[in-house]
């Protein structure tokens, strides 16, 4: 047994690629060794910006033996009556290189029998089979973006510059991307650049540590956390360890050395978000705050290196940060010579989307649509007024200098400036949050007013874009409309907004001077499909989602409520009887059936009884459903089960008398209509077994 080491030396990989590549490497090497029947011990992967490595302990020297059967001629042709091999068997055995008396008979599915040669593979030496397999592992790694370099055609996240491949003390002769493997690695640049030979795989982490490379990302993370925490504590502060930034730094250094710098306290007059953006996003520094959460005039930078000349490096970082903050302060002060609303007219010069006019146009549409939404939702006068104010101001920051410099602060700057102008907290926060959710993992606006404003803004974008024929197709969604739709759904569900999306779509389209029903329907259908996707993502079965959507029209909240209630019930005992009753009643109905129920035409007692149960449950079912209590509504359906089943046992629905038949069908139609307050149960997929067991 020998240990196996593979190190792929690269130029600086994108930080986001390192972790995923390590996972792929572990998986691919494990699978490769399994496929090669090479037993192994523990596998460890390592990764830095300049190397991806995997160390596998105790890999078997040889492949495990294996047998494989090759199918030959049909048994009847291979052996005669007495079981002696025929000429065909002899030929087959020769072609496979086995003795004819070693042929076996195998039986395949369907009972066909064949002669088969048993090929024994004693297994090859690991060092023989590994090079090609490991080269394939390297070639098979995938990244978000890949590139070519030099004159080669190989693709990788960044150029591969060296390879180490060792099995025990020997180099495995493999080549990938035009680079031949050796035992030579490189250390930290510039602390210990190497080259340096690796004698045995097991010494890899320790040897690299001596070369000033900490190959284990978890160790680098711990080191950064400890250093940063200690440096902040030295100034009675607490480091703001933004998790994304921490991860990015962990994956962009080989030897982290944290240092604390400071900046002029006068900059602390800038809004916190601006300071944090400059430090974290632009300079990759951690901010430091005091016990009460206020920022201090200090930052922590992580150098890829050691303590030597730390003062020079700190001075450099301080100097750069001061210049950046001076820029930000200049923009902030320029902006603050005006009120936020003073920027609104300039929005007419900023195009929102070619087909949807300027941001000025959008702002005017939002103000109008906000009024409509307020009345649709019955908002009180004060809220209506705040919503209108927030709508009028929410885009104004797009033409401020600070957002020009820091586009990621759109909304946030609007909130800050609105507050400084004395706008109400609710208005300011609504401006700040109305873009949310900005991506997967972000939450919808937290305040009610922010959510209303978000709804208005997103509905305007969605209706306008669909009206302009920009509906996303396939994987193409250049305007991010799926995310916009997703945002609408999250807001509707969060605030439990009961509203007709079609009416809302009409109102939004009216702002574009349009009134076509087709577009309004398209908007609703787009949202219904997004909701369906959301429900399925949340674990609702697709058939249950369809059953709920089928009876919910343009009411997204109702569709979601129905789906949740049915999803909850569908696995339980007691659901099948409801399903079976609905199924029997609906199955016999024709689509074009009409007509009302005439009790005078009832012939059997069960007809009257079912009629009475329908009349007694329809109101409670409708009422519970109307209140969004779909589980309760489902319980109210339960009395229908017995009579529905019994009517099929007691009478012939398709009675010879046409009037009796029509009357019975009308009765069943009434039953189905009551069920449909909850869902279209026919859409639910139930196996015969489920129906039997539970029914």
């Amino acid at each position, binding site marked *: 047994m020998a240990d196996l080491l593979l190190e792929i030396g690269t130029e*600086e990989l994108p930080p*986001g690629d390192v972790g995923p590549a390590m996972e792929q490497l572990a998986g691919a090497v494990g699978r490769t060794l399994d496929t090669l029947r090479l037993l192994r011990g523990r596998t460890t992967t390592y990764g830095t910006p300049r190397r991806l490595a995997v160390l596998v302990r105790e890999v078997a020297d040889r492949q495990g033996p294996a047998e494989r059967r090759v199918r030959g001629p049909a048994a009847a042709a291979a052996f005669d009556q007495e079981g002696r091999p025929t000429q065909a068997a002899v030929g087959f055995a020769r072609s496979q290189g086995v003795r004819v008396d070693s042929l076996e008979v195998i039986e395949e599915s369907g009972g066909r029998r064949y002669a088969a040669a048993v090929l024994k593979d004693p297994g090859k030496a690991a060092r023989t089979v590994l090079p090609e397999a490991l080269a394939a592992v390297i070639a098979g790694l995938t990244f978000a973006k890949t590139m*070519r370099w030099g004159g080669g055609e190989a693709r990788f996240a960044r*150029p591969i510059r060296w390879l180490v491949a060792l099995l025990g003390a020997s180099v495995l002769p493999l080549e990938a991307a035009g680079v031949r493997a050796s035992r030579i690695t490189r250390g930290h640049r510039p602390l210990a650049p190497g080259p340096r030979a690796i004698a045995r795989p097991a010494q890899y982490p320790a040897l690299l540590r001596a070369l000033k490379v900490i190959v284990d990302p978890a160790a680098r993370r711990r080191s950064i956390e400890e250093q940063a925490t200690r440096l902040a504590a030295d100034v009675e502060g607490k480091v703001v360890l933004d998790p994304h930034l921490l991860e990015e730094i962990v994956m962009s250094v080989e030897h982290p050395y944290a240092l604390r710098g400071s900046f002029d306290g006068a900059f602390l007059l800038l809004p916190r978000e601006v300071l944090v953006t400059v430090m974290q996003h632009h300079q990759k520094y951690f901010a430091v705050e005091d016990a009460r959460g206020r920022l201090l005039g200090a930052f922590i930078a992580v150098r890829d290196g050691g303590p030597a000349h730390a003062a020079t490096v700190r*001075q*450099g970082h301080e100097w750069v940060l001061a210049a950046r903050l001076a820029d930000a302060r200049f923009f902030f002060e320029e902006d603050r010579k005006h009120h936020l609303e003073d920027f609104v007219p300039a929005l007419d*010069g900023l*195009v929102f989307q070619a087909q949807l006019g300027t941001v000025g146009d959008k702002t005017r549409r939002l103000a109008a649509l906000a009024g409509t939404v307020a009345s649709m939702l019955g908002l009180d006068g004060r809220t209506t007024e705040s919503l209108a104010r927030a709508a009028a101001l929410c885009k104004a920051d797009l033409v401020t200098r600070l957002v020009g410099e820091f586009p990621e602060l759109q909304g946030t700057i609007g909130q800050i400036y609105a507050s400084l102008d004395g706008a109400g907290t609710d208005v300011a926060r609504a401006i700040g949050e109305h873009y949310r959710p900005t991506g997967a993992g972000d939450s919808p606006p937290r305040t009610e007013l922010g959510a209303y404003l978000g709804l208005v803004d997103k509905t305007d974008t969605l209706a306008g874009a669909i009206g302009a024929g920009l509906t996303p197709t396939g994987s193409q969604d250049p305007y991010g409309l799926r995310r916009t739709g997703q945002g609408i759904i999250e807001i509707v569900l969060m605030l439990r907004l009961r509203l007709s999306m079609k009416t809302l779509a009409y109102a939004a389209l009216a702002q574009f001077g349009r009134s076509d029903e087709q577009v309004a329907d398209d908007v609703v259908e787009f949202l219904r499909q997004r909701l369906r996707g959301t429900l399925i993502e949340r674990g609702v079965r697709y058939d249950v989602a369809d059953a709920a959507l089928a009876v919910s029209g343009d009411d997204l909240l109702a569709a979601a409520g129905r789906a949740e209630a049915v999803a909850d019930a569908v696995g339980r005992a007691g659901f099948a009887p409801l399903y079976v009753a609905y199924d029997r009643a609906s199955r016999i109905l024709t689509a074009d059936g009409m007509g009302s129920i005439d009790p005078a035409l009832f012939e059997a007692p069960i007809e009257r009884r079912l009629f009475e149960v329908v009349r007694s449950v329809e109101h409670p079912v409708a009422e519970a459903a109307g209140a969004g209590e779909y589980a309760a509504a489902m319980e109210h359906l339960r009395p229908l089960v017995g009579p529905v089943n019994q009517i099929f046992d007691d009478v012939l629905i398709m009675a010879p008398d046409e009037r009796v038949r029509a009357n019975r069908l009308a009765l069943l139609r009434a039953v189905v209509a009551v069920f449909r307050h909850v869902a279209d149960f026919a859409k639910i997929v139930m196996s015969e077994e489920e129906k039997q067991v539970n029914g």
Partner: protein
Amino acid sequence: MTFQDVILVLQRFWAAQGCVIEQPYDIEVGAGTMHPATFLRALGPEPWRVAYVQPSRRPADGRYGENPNRLFKHYQFQVILKPSPDDVQETYLASLRELGIDLLEHDIRFLEDDWEAPTIGASGLGWQVFLDGQEITQFTYFQQVAGLEARPVSAEITYGVERITMFIQRKADVFDIAWAPGVSYGEVRREDEAQQSRYGFDTADVTMLRTWFEGAEAEAKRLLEAHLVLPAYDYVLKCSHLFNLLEARGTVGVAERTTLMARSRALARRCAESYISDREAKGFPLRNAFAPAAAPRRGHRGARRG
């Protein structure tokens, strides 16, 4: 080290690496990439090594000479190595040492950056190089030029000469750096910044600029028809600069912007295709130039091969 020292040191360094020392292009460009010594030479199979300073005009970045970090015109030191050598990073770092930047005394970082120049259909992967938190270089492996796959791949190294000098001289205001002994950058350049900003933002005649744009575009097309690709490309550059002026003047809407950029990209693409077929017809004259002997042997792989 003065501003001009930085340029002189880099020129000498890259000349020693076997680069042709070109000169700035004499038509307004927004970046060194647009110089034909990069844009056209990066196309096709012929190897190429070049270095030059390129004054780069970006009218929208002008600040009347009043902002310590923003300039209407800045100076790029541009290097193209085609195909990108295996030791290109080490060579780049060696150039910093020549500038007196000892890597052991600083924090040098290659931070992921995907570069794209939509007006010329060029894109690549690489890094922004940061020195103690200051971006000093854009380092790119060209993947596409003029929408065509780059084969072989060129490495493009673009030093920001002002940024590096500010760093070396520890000056927070670009106008305070010493251009030559006793002469500041401000003394050489500030008036130009002020006047060009007044022109670009306030005075440029929009109607005239549009007319010229149309004219330059028409001339580029006519020259392409006449198989004069190099003069045609000059007019593409003029289009690009006129477009930048129009944009600085705030007269280009987003929709029009997209259209004008697409027109410019289409012309650049035609120039590129024409250039390659010209070179092919001539048998790719530089195919065997810049033989490895001209390039110093350096680094792990090169050493082993040699």
